[in-house]
């Protein structure tokens, strides 16, 4: 601690320097006075007493300086001096200063913003107790690639729970559920995201309720009373934060649920399935039908587990893998997985964001590097402009270290100011990003904190060092001397500096090309995604979802009657051209699939075809405009009976019955013994915009297991139809909410938001890089023109035509651009593979993109070089020679 207090003294002295000076003066004066007084007492005259005293005393000024020096002020003071000089130099060229600061601020701002996101989303531990022991477990199908992280069947979960010795607790979670919340207390009905979970999920995570209690084991029984826990947001929004909510009853899917507790605001559920939108939690053992709880082939959940201390995920996976392999052996039917898989809970929650976020971070890193090179380049140019001054100072014995320190101070000043501006930029950017992507997992943990502050300081320091050192490299003392000797005529020193700037430029251009190529690939892939053929026209279509609560619509007759009235009501609305019902619409994602076999040509177990099952009413195909290729659509009778007839998509027909007529053949599934007769073949559609069309089978909607349906409506001006349709639903059942009201176009935009987000961000970084590179090219060439004014003057005086001068200068600027372009394209080819997983229907080596990037870059480089070159060709030879 001694050094600390010593440091304290030094600091005090440094900051109270003036006082210290005064005190020292007073002290010395006192000393001198006493000496004089003594001399006088010895009998000297006043005059000689003073003279003698001064003689013994020495030079007071020198004395003061000597005492002063012991305080180690020298270093600090010369730093202050440097800073003062730096400020003055920067203020002398405000244009340069502003550009340099802005350029670097953009780089620093983008990096700080991205780092904040990466840190918040990917690096910060999950907000649960001992998060490093939390893992998420999945089933794994035999095939590699797809099916690596398959949801878990409740039956398997029970067996795992019995067998696993390496875990403290294990919970089954089904986070992708929904409820209709009934209209009550003057509020409209609404449909909310919900999660089913084992009773122990919250104790497993270490989450304490804010109000009431969490679930008890008894709540998780099938026969138990219905209980629910509310999220903080839902409790505040729907129930105005009612402190007496615990014990009250709320109606979910027209059934009464007792509220047992409210979760804390800090609890936001994150997993690869189902993001942070879960509003209420109910016990899975109570909610799942009993058959489902025992099923091994119906995958409805994920398993969250807390490992015992010291136990590895691998050992648990090995143990559970054996259990699952045994299950597969005992239940050989299709759909039972034979292996398990798992990853840390954090990894699971943010897995989808990893590649894009790291790619974006790399992109911003490139931008910062380019910005630093530009600032270095600007500093070099400035040094060159001050070449003579530097040379004289060096000649007079100015230390090279001193000159270097000046340059470092200057770049430090720029970096610090840029950092301040950059923090503002990053703050604004973060606000924007968080607002744009509230759906992103862990978005709540994105925060500027101490770690981010450290990163910012490190970024500023490394920018200062980088720019300062590179520009100092261009100011070697010897060369400065030669600059002095050779006067300002095109000399070696400035040529070497120009060479250094050219090298920087080549690097800058190549980084820009890499960024542009990456942005191009992502943009193209986004465009591909937007324009992907879903199999049906996307304009003039609206979809809405209605889900019937089983408690109120127990009988199939009731469901059928409801849907009959609903679709009749919708069709009667003015403006509706066609309307139909389907269990899951194209672009809406996974909606249930099964392994199918045919009666006519039974297939081997491992060759069963994975078919998406959809239920539809006859009007759907016309409304969606899915073409009928063979056979016929359902009849009205069939939709009201439990007719086992089915339509299949073209790809199903091609795979199950290659080269044959499928009409009249029969399909059946492992999960029940129903056999479906194929009555028609319809066009293929994409269920998920990211995936190619999957084999699909349609069966009549009514009288099957579906209690919810999407209303698919075609008409002009479909947006204006949403309210009337909601009114139709409200008239039929005032407690029934209509959810997911979206035009078809909007629903596609929603499922492409990830790629839109990524490509727009990278594109903006690439554009910044392009502007910086253009500015860099312009700067270097403009500098070269100034440097070579004399030479050009001579050339022109000797008869060189203006065109030739212009060509000469253009080539001078374009050469580094071309080299950079070639290097950059090579670099892009190498890095393209890294973002391959983010691309849709686009190859990392896309000739079109590469050509476009090259063309863009050449155009920008051309423009940046044209102006100085043109200026060079305008030089008046006489004027140029005279200024020399």
């Amino acid at each position, binding site marked *: 601690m001694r050094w600390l*207090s010593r440091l304290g*003294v030094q600091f005090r002295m440094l900051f109270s320097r003036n006082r210290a000076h005064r005190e*020292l003066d007073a002290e010395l004066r006192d000393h001198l006075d006493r000496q004089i007084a003594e001399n006088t007492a010895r009998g000297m005259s006043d005059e000689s007493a003073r003279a003698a005293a001064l003689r013994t005393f020495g030079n007071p000024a020198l004395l003061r300086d000597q*005492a002063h020096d*012991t305080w*180690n002020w020298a270093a600090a003071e010369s730093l202050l001096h440097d800073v003062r000089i730096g400020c003055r130099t920067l203020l002398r060229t405000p244009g340069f200063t502003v550009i340099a600061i802005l350029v670097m601020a953009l780089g620093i701002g983008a990096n700080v913003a991205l780092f904040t996101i990466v840190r918040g989303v990917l690096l910060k531990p999950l907000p649960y107790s001992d998060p490093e022991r939390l893992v998420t477990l999945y089933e794994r199908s035999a095939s590699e690639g797809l099916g690596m992280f398959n949801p878990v069947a409740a039956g398997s979960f029970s067996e795992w729970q019995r067998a696993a010795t390496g875990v403290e607790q294990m919970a089954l979670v089904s986070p992708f559920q929904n409820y209709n919340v009934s209209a009550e207390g003057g509020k409209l009905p609404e449909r909310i995201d919900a999660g089913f979970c084992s009773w122990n999920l919250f104790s497993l995570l270490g989450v304490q309720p804010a109000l009431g209690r969490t679930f008890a084991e008894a709540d998780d029984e099938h026969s138990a009373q219905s209980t629910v826990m509310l999220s903080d947001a839902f409790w505040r929004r729907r129930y105005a934060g009612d402190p007496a909510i615990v014990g009250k009853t709320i109606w979910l899917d027209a059934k009464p649920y007792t509220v047992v507790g409210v979760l804390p605001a800090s609890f936001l559920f994150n997993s690869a399935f189902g993001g942070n939108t879960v509003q209420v939690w109910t016990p899975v053992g109570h909610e799942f039908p009993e058959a489902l709880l025992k099923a091994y082939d119906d995958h409805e959940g994920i398993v969250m587990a807390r490992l015992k201390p010291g136990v590895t995920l691998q050992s648990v996976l090995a143990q559970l893998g054996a259990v699952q392999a045994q299950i597969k052996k005992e239940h050989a039917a299709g759909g039972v997985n034979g292996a398990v898989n798992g990853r840390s809970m954090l990894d699971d929650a943010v897995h989808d964001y990893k590649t894009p976020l790291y790619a974006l971070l790399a992109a911003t890193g490139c931008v910062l590097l380019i910005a630093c090179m530009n600032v270095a380049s600007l500093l070099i140019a400035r040094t060159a402009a001050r070449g003579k001054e530097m040379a004289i100072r060096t000649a007079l014995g100015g230390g090279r270290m001193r000159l270097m320190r000046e340059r470092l101070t200057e770049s430090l000043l720029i970096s610090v100011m840029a950092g301040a501006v950059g923090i503002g930029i990053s703050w604004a950017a973060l606000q924007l990003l968080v607002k744009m992507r509230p759906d992103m997992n862990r978005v709540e943990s994105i925060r500027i904190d101490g770690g981010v502050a450290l990163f910012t300081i490190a970024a500023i320091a490394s920018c200062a060092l980088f720019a300062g050192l590179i520009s100092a490299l261009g100011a070697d003392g010897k060369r400065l001397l030669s600059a002095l000797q050779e006067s300002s005529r095109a000399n070696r020193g400035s040529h070497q500096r120009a060479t250094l700037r050219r090298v920087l430029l080549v690097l800058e251009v190549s980084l820009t090309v890499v960024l542009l190529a990456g942005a191009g690939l992502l943009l193209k892939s986004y465009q591909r995604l937007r324009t992907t053929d879903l199999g049906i026209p996307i304009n003039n279509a609206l979809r809405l979802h209605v889900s019937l609560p089983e408690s109120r619509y127990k009988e199939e007759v009731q469901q059928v009657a409801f849907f009959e009235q609903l679709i009749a009501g919708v069709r009667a609305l003015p403006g509706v051209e066609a309307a139909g019902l389907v269990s899951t619409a194209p672009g809406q994602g996974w909606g249930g699939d099964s392994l199918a076999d045919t009666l006519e040509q039974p297939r081997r177990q491992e060759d069963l075809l994975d078919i998406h099952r959809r239920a539809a009413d006859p009007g759907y195909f016309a409304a969606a405009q899915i073409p009928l290729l063979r056979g016929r659509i359902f009849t009205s009778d069939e939709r009201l009976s439990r007719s086992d007839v089915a339509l299949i998509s073209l790809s199903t027909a091609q795979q199950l019955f290659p080269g044959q007529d499928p009409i009249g053949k029969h399909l059946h599934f492992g999960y029940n013994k129903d056999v479906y007769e194929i009555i028609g073949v319809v066009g293929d559609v994409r269920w998920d915009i990211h995936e190619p069309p999957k084999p699909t089978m349609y069966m009549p909607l009514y009288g099957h297991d579906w209690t919810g349906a999407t209303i698919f409506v075609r008409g002009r001006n479909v947006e204006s139809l949403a309210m009337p349709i909601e009114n139709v639903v409200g008239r039929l059942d005032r407690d029934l909410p209509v959810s997911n009201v979206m035009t078809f176009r909007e629903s596609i935009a929603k499922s492409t938001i990830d790629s839109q987000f990524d490509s727009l961000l990278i594109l903006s970084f690439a554009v910044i890089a392009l502007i910086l590179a253009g500015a860099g090219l312009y700067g270097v060439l403009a500098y070269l023109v100034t440097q070579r004014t004399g030479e050009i003057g001579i050339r022109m005086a000797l008869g060189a035509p203006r065109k030739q001068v212009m060509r000469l200068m253009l080539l001078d600027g374009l050469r580094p651009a071309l080299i950079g372009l070639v290097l950059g394209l090579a670099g892009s080819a190498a890095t393209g593979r890294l973002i391959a997983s983010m691309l849709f229907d686009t190859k990392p080596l896309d000739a079109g993109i590469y050509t476009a990037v090259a063309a863009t870059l050449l155009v920008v480089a051309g423009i940046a070089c044209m102006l100085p070159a043109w200026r060079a060709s305008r030089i008046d030879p006489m004027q140029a020679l005279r200024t020399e």
Partner: protein
Amino acid sequence: MTGRIELPQGTLDLLILRTLLPGPQHGWAISERVQQVSSEVLSIQQGSLYPALHRLERRGWIKAEWGTSDNNRRAKYYELTRTGRKQLDAETEAWRKLAVAVEQVLEGA
């Protein structure tokens, strides 16, 4: 002034610390006292006194405070700190050893 010798390197600090042992003193008094006690043999040049005082203060061995002197003038008083006292002990010990050793060498040679 005759009979005076140059102070060996490093002894100045020791002398100042020792002079401050009885109690706080101002700069003038320190130099007077050293001169007096050493029978005018040792004299501290003001040129080295003040830098030395500041050096000792920076090291935390002495601390300074403004006070009023005997003749009613404001003066800066220097005082030993606890670490300064320890330092004085250590340096006195070292000096004694050195003096004895040097003496022995001189005798033995």
